[in-house]
């Protein structure tokens, strides 16, 4: 009984503080600042400089500003339903954090990768639904584009993250669990036969993640020169703050999944001190965010058919190849 109560309190504490709401908010602010700063430096700009040390508090100031702006609801638009959907998407993303090794009391079971995959799709569906909840042609077009992309990139991303999970489960006994696969995945890099599969699925995961985050060259649903902000056109104030927060949290959670499943997590400090493990995970996380920002700064936007063609012609088959080989190897 006491054990059950302490576990429940632990779950609530993790959800609200670490690695849940408070910690995620801090990381989201840092991630947004780092991405904006790196992106600006790649374009010979300064990026945020004014608020906080080197502009570190600029994202926080932006969130506060948006949070206390008027929530304008366009005629025939829904007032509270989009906010509830956004809150659900934030909840889904933060629930995934409990299934990763950064959580002190990790939630895991055999085959829980299915639960993680289910939770990962929530934000995409929420963002697509937002466009259809306003009577705006830009919103409907943006959502239509987003759903068209979804059938390609969600497939590619899920197949890509399944490859290390399948390999870790078949070879190292990770039982198709996200947590156990994250812990054992660094051992996959020690086997030369598995390295090509890991490299292929890492590349496909990074490219499909770029599409999942709607960053260039896949920012087609919110192409500002064509359809203003796509599904988010008619949203302002706290709802816009939630949309930006979901983007940051999605980057944080998915990048962490890549760090743990593909980049070895705490390796090479598996047996090392805690501070070294935290430091190495942070460094790997920053590298993933930097690579995604670098891709964003380097390329121009695809058309929707070009993006779909690229994803279905190269990324999905490559990730599928790695997955099929990982099931027979």
């Amino acid at each position, binding site marked *: 009984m006491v054990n059950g109560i302490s576990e429940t309190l632990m*779950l*609530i504490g*993790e*959800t*609200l503080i670490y690695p*849940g*709401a408070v910690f995620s908010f801090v990381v989201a602010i840092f991630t947004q600042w780092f991405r904006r700063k790196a992106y600006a430096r790649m374009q010979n700009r300064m990026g945020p400089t004014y608020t906080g040390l080197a502009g570190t508090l600029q994202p926080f100031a932006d969130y506060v500003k948006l*949070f*206390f*702006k*008027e*929530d*304008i*609801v*366009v*005629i*025939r638009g829904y007032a*509270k339903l989009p*906010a*509830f959907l*956004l*809150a*659900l998407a*934030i*909840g*889904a993303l*933060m*629930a*995934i954090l*409990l*299934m990763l090794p950064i959580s002190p009391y990790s*939630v*895991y*079971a*055999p*085959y*829980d990768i*299915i*639960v993680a995959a289910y*939770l990962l799709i929530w934000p995409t569906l929420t963002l697509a639904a937002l466009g259809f909840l306003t*009577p*705006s*042609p*830009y919103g*409907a*077009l943006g959502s*239509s584009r987003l*759903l*068209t992309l979804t*059938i390609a990139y969600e497939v590619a991303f899920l197949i890509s993250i399944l490859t290390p999970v399948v390999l870790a489960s078949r070879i190292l006994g990770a039982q198709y669990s996200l947590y156990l696969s994250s812990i054992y995945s660094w051992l996959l890099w020690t086997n030369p036969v598995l390295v090509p599969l890991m490299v292929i699925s890492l590349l496909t995961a990074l490219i499909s993640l770029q599409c999942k985050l709607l960053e260039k060259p896949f920012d087609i649903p919110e192409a500002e020169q064509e359809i203003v902000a796509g599904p988010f056109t008619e949203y*302002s*104030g*706290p*709802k816009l703050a*939630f949309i930006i927060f979901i983007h940051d949290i999605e980057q944080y959670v998915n990048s962490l999944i890549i760090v743990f499943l593909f980049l070895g997590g705490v390796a090479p400090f598996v047996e090392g001190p805690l501070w070294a493990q935290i430091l190495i995970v942070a460094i790997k996380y920053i590298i993933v965010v930097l690579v995604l920002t670098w891709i964003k700064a380097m390329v121009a936007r695809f058309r*929707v*058919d070009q993006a*779909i*063609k690229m994803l279905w012609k190269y990324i999905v088959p490559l990730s599928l190849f790695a997955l099929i080989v990982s099931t027979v190897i």
Partner: protein
Amino acid sequence: MSLLMVVLETAVSMFIITLLAYGLYLYSIKVTKSFAKESKEKPLIYACGEHITEKEALLADRHLFTTIWNEVFKPLYDSLRGKIHTGILNDWFFWMFLALIIAYTIIIILGGVGG
């Protein structure tokens, strides 16, 4: 831990965060109502700098389902459409006959219509 417990614990976590975020939203609109001037401009629908009616603003739902076929998979069936619609009746009959044979073959492979 069983898979059901994982589902339950993640659901509880998701529920708590959803309540927290939605509560923050409700707090935000309550606070901002006290000092923000209500906007008169944005509730109207704009597109390309002009007011448009609600009917014009809404896209037909069918686009959601047909866009992908029309835009993405068009190259896959476009050449076939050219071959069928030549204006010569025999061409059309040929393709329809071919489609019928394929349909019959599939039905026979699946065990026929009588079960």
